[in-house]
């Protein structure tokens, strides 16, 4: 059972992983960084969300972004949520997006109060569901279907897929009617 408000593990790339160096590039460095983050995550099994802050990072190239962040999101999708915060420059965001597109792995980015979903293009329906989950923080399948005016089966399928892709977190709760209900949480 996942906690109501999922615990997040906050990682500052600059200070926690790169020892203060504000430029990160290359596949090898990206792989090393990912392994460090994964070890930190293993040491905190209670953390359902891994938040990677890029504050202070002046340069992050596409190869590093792919091996460190995008591969991490791939590794944990369906089990833990990964999001990126505090991206200082458009170049870094573009490089992260390019890596996410190539890897076909969507990624949640928070640079303001509204999230961005970068990587592979999302359909309008998918975006509507994501906006709903983000706005509420957490939503159940039936509830989402009612608000969106769509069939429960349709919304259920989409939400499960979004969870498997790493765009939302899923938790199981006891339903009032007995049995389990799936609830979907925003990764933030």
């Amino acid at each position, binding site marked *: 059972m996942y906690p109501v408000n999922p615990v997040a593990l906050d990682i500052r790339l600059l200070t926690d992983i790169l020892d203060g160096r504000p430029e990160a590039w290359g596949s*090898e460095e990206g792989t090393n960084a990912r392994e460090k983050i994964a070890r930190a995550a293993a040491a905190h099994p209670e953390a359902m969300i891994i938040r990677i802050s890029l504050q202070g990072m002046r340069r992050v190239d596409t190869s590093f972004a792919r091996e460190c962040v995008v591969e991490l999101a791939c590794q944990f999708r369906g089990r833990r949520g990964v999001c990126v915060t505090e991206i200082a420059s458009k170049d870094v965001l573009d490089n992260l997006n390019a890596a996410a597109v190539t890897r076909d792995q969507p990624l949640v980015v928070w640079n303001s109060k509204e999230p961005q979903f970068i990587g592979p293009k999302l359909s309008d329906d998918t975006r509507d569901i994501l906006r709903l989950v983000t706005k509420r923080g957490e939503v159940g399948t039936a509830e989402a279907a009612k608000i969106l005016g769509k069939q429960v089966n349709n919304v259920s399928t989409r939400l499960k897929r979004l969870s498997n892709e790493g765009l939302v977190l899923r938790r199981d709760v006891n339903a009032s009617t007995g049995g389990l209900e799936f609830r979907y949480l925003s990764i933030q």
Partner: protein
Amino acid sequence: MAYRVELPSRWINGLVFENALREDSGPIESQEASVVFSVASGAALMVDASVRLLSLSNQLRHKGKRVTLEFCRQDTSTYDYLDRIGFFRELHDDIVVHPERPSFSAASRYFGGNPGVVEIRRLRLGEIDHEAPERLERALMSALPQGERRERVGSAAYYLFSELIGNVHEHSCSALDGYAALQVYRNGNSARIAVSDSGEGLLETLRPCLPEKYPELVHLDSTALLMHGLRRGGLSRKGKGQGGDGLHRCAAYAMELEANLDIRMPAHSLRVNAKQGSLRKASAQARGNMPRIGGTHVVLDFRLD
């Protein structure tokens, strides 16, 4: 009898250097056991030709050939330039230099002290210099006036270097080191970036993987395959989703700089003109029409204003 390459009395960029090699299949595959590069009085090697000469000389020596570089005694300008950028420091010890090798590298004296003229940086395989892209970026930015253009050029140059140098370390698979260099040509208000390795070659490592990893691209010829990689990315010998975004990002930054991009491989070369939002193939050559040079050599030249 030596295979002689005469580097003429003029500005020598990568293309002029290639033309000087044009004799049968080139020095690597020639029968001669010796190769002589003769640098004429008045020859002015640009940084990309310098790096290519360096790579080729070391490749020839690695293949067991006797290599000699001849410079003119009366005109030492090219010799002095090469010394200042670290050429002789990186040249294998067995390679003979006439009239003589510098006894002490001028690059070591000037290291990092020539704004806009950056020494050839060795890319030691297995040993990544994490500060290389930043140092090269700073050298370029030091030659530009303050302003938005300076920031954009600096950023683009950083990422070009990081991706190209990263590719050398990851894919070169060579016993020989690679090289990265940058030069600002103030009179022309332009800059030139060169990154070279002596590996198998970009296409040569990619093509054998196509039937298994990218069957839909097997039918593409070399030029079309490269253009696909530049425009769309995602081509990696490891397979789909496993990389190949470096070259694509290089193309994106080349478009931002409106650069000319040259990619020279053992049996193929491609020249692309990059403008904002578009990549246009300017020229392409394939085996049978060009001498063999080992490795992948990427050059970008762009205006600074």
